[in-house]
C-alpha cells in the first residue's frame, strides 16, 4: 500500500513472515484445544510487538498506533486469536496504564507489559451492561485507604492467562449531580491485581470462534485494593475508556482486514490448484469475480483503517473514521470468510483449514469493541443525527 513508509512496509513484511512461520503452524491445534500458546506470546514479546506504540523510554519500540495495527493485521491473516491477544494486550492492558497511570503504576506494570512478559485485561462488559456501558453495576467504595470492589464482569479478554498480572475494571464510585439537577453515576477505573482475595477468574468460555484467545467471567466479592490503584482521575472512567474503545476500533478494523486478506490469499491459492470438471475452478468467471470482490473488500477495509490510524497518530479527531473502519472491515471479514469457505467446498467446512477458522472467528468482529449497530449509532451521532 503506497501510503506506508519503507519502515512500515518492512515491519508489516516482518510480522507476516513471523505469522507464517511461527504462528500459523500452531493455529489449528490451539483452536482445537482452546489453548492460547504462551510460547507464541513470549516470542511476540521478544519481537517487540507488545511495545510497538510506546516510546523507548518505557521499553517500547518507538512506533505509533499505525505500527501496532500493521502488526495486528499481519497476524490476523493466519490466526485471529493471536492477533486479538496482541490487540487487547496493548490496547486494553498496557495503553490505559501508559496514558492514565501514575508514575508508580507505570513503574510497576509497564516494563513487563511492553515486553510481553505480562498481560493486563480491561473489564468493562457486565451481564447487564454491554453496549450500554452506563448501566455498569460493579461498585467500588473507598474504605479508609482501600477500594472495596463488588460485582461481576463477563467476556474479559486476557484476564486469566498464566502471565495475567491485573484487570482494570470500570466501577461505579459514587453519584454526580449535573448542573441541571439530574443525577448520574460516577464511573472510575481501578486496577485489580490477579490473585487478590475475593477476585475470582471463572473458567474460560466455550466460544465458537477466537477459541485460543483467553476470555473469562470475573467476580469481585469484597475485593480490597489500595486507594492508589485508582487509574486516572476519579469520575473520569468513562472518558478514559471511550478513548481506549475508539482506538480499539481501529485495531479491530486492522484485525478484520487481516482476516479478510487471509481469506483472499487462501481462496486464490485453492482456486488456482483445485481442478473440477477438468479445469482449475479459478478459470470460471463466477469464481474469479467472487475473488475480485474479496480483493475489493480488503482494499476498502485497509484504506479505511489506515486513514483512521493516521488521524489518531496525527492528533486529529478520529471517532467517526474509527467507527466506519470497524464497520466496513468486519463486514469484509465476514463476507470474505463466507466466500472463501464456499470456494473451498466441503474442505472449507473442516476445522483444520484456515478458512473454516476465519468463518467461525470473524463473527465476533461484528460484535466486540462495540457492535456494528453501535458503530452506526456513533456515525449517525457524528453526523448530528439523533440516534
Amino acid at each position: 500500500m503506497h501510503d506506508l513508509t519503507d519502515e512500515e512496509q518492512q515491519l508489516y513484511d516482518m510480522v507476516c513472515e513471523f505469522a507464517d512461520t511461527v504462528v500459523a503452524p500452531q493455529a489449528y491445534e490451539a483452536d482445537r484445544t482452546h489453548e492460547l500458546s504462551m510460547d507464541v506470546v513470549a516470542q511476540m514479546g521478544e519481537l517487540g510487538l507488545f511495545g510497538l506504540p510506546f516510546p523507548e523510554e518505557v521499553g517500547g519500540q518507538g512506533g505509533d498506533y499505525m505500527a501496532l495495527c500493521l502488526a495486528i493485521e499481519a497476524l490476523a491473516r493466519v490466526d485471529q486469536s493471536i492477533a486479538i491477544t496482541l490487540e487487547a494486550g496493548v490496547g486494553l492492558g498496557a495503553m490505559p496504564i501508559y496514558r492514565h497511570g501514575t508514575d508508580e503504576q507505570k513503574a510497576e506494570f509497564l516494563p513487563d507489559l511492553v515486553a510481553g512478559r505480562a498481560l493486563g485485561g480491561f473489564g468493562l462488559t457486565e451481564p447487564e451492561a454491554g453496549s450500554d456501558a452506563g448501566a455498569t453495576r460493579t461498585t467500588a467504595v473507598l474504605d479508609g485507604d482501600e477500594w472495596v470492589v463488588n460485582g461481576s464482569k463477563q467476556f474479559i479478554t486476557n484476564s486469566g492467562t498464566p502471565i495475567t498480572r491485573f484487570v482494570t475494571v470500570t466501577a461505579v464510585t459514587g453519584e454526580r449531580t449535573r448542573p441541571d439537577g439530574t443525577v448520574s453515576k460516577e464511573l472510575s477505573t481501578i486496577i485489580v491485581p490477579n490473585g487478590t482475595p475475593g477476585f475470582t477468574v471463572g473458567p474460560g468460555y466455550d466460544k465458537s470462534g477466537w477459541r485460543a484467545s483467553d476470555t473469562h467471567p470475573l467476580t469481585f466479592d469484597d475485593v480490597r485494593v489500595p486507594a492508589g490503584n485508582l487509574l486516572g482521575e476519579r469520575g473520569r472512567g468513562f472518558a478514559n475508556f471511550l478513548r481506549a474503545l475508539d482506538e480499539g476500533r481501529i485495531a479491530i478494523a486492522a484485525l478484520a482486514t487481516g482476516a479478510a486478506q487471509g481469506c483472499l490469499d487462501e481462496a486464490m491459492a485453492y482456486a488456482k490448484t483445485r481442478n473440477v470438471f477438468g479445469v482449475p475452478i479459478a478459470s470460471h468467471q463466477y469464481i474469479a469475480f467472487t475473488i475480485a470482490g474479496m480483493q475489493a473488500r480488503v482494499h476498502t477495509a485497509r484504506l479505511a483503517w489506515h486513514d483512521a490510524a493516521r488521524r489518531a497518530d496525527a492528533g486529529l479527531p478520529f471517532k467517526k473514521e474509527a467507527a466506519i473502519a470497524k464497520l466496513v472491515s468486519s463486514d469484509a471479514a465476514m463476507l470474505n470468510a463466507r466466500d472463501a469457505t464456499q470456494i473451498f467446498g466441503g474442505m472449507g467446512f473442516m476445522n483444520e483449514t484456515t478458512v473454516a477458522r476465519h468463518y467461525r472467528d470473524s463473527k465476533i468482529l461484528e460484535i466486540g469493541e462495540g457492535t456494528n449497530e453501535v458503530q452506526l449509532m456513533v456515525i449517525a451521532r457524528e453526523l448530528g443525527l439523533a440516534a
Partner: protein
Amino acid sequence: MKIIVLVKEVPDTYGERKLDLETGLADRAASEPVLDEIGERALEVALAHADAHADTEVVVMSMAPESAATTIRKGLAMGAGSAVHIADPGLAAADLGLTARTLAAAIRRTGFDLVITGNLSTDGSGGVIPAMLAELLEVPNATALTSVEITDGSVSGTRDVDGGTMRVSAPLPAVVSITEALPDARFPNFKGIMAAKKKPFETVSAADLGIEPEDLSAAWSIMTAIAEKPPRTAGTKITDEGDGGTRIAEFLIENRLV
C-alpha cells in the same frame, strides 16, 4: 573482531521462479525478492557471536543490483552494524569468477577477521564462491559447516560427511561457509528497522574496487544454451495386485533410487 557476512537477494524461495530466456538471468520481476535464507543463517551466526562479545563488528556485504538495497537493509535491521553494497550495471551478468574477484576486492577494502557465507545460494546454486574467495584472499577456508565456534584467533566447526562428522578449524583470518543445519535467523524488530535507517550503508562501484568488468584476461564461463525446465511428466502408477511392494522395490532399484 570484524566479521563480514555475505548476503544475497534472491527470488522468493517459496514463490514462482522464472528464468529470462534471453539473458539466462533470473527474472527478478517474476517474484518477490527476499534475502536468501542461507545468508540470513550466516548472519545469525555472526550476530549470535556479537551478542556474546561486545567488541564484534558485523558487516553485511552484497554484490547486487541497485534495487536490492532494501533487502540488504534487512540485514542491518536484524542487527549488523554496517552494510557494503556493490552495485554496478557492468556486473549484471557477472559469472562466478568475476563475482568472486569483485567480492574479494571489497572484502579486502573493508578489512576482516572472518568472512561467513552460505554454502549455496538458492538461485544460482554455484556453491564455489566461498572457496574462490579464500583462494583470492589467500586465507584458509572451511566449507559446509554444520556448527561454528569463533574464538579470538580461530574458527572451528563440524562438517557432516557420509557416515560421519568431521571437526575442522582454521586460524583467522578465514572464510567459512555454513549449511542449513545452523539455526534460523532472528526476526528484525521495529526498533531494529528504525535503527537500520541510521546505520552506515556504503554503495560502491566496480571501479571503486579496481575491477574492470570488461576485462576478459581471466577465463569466463560462457552460457551456450538455455531452456525452460521441461514440464513434469506424469509419474508411473503402480496398482497393487498383491505384488505392489515388490514392484515398488523393483521400480526404485531400476531407477537407482535406492
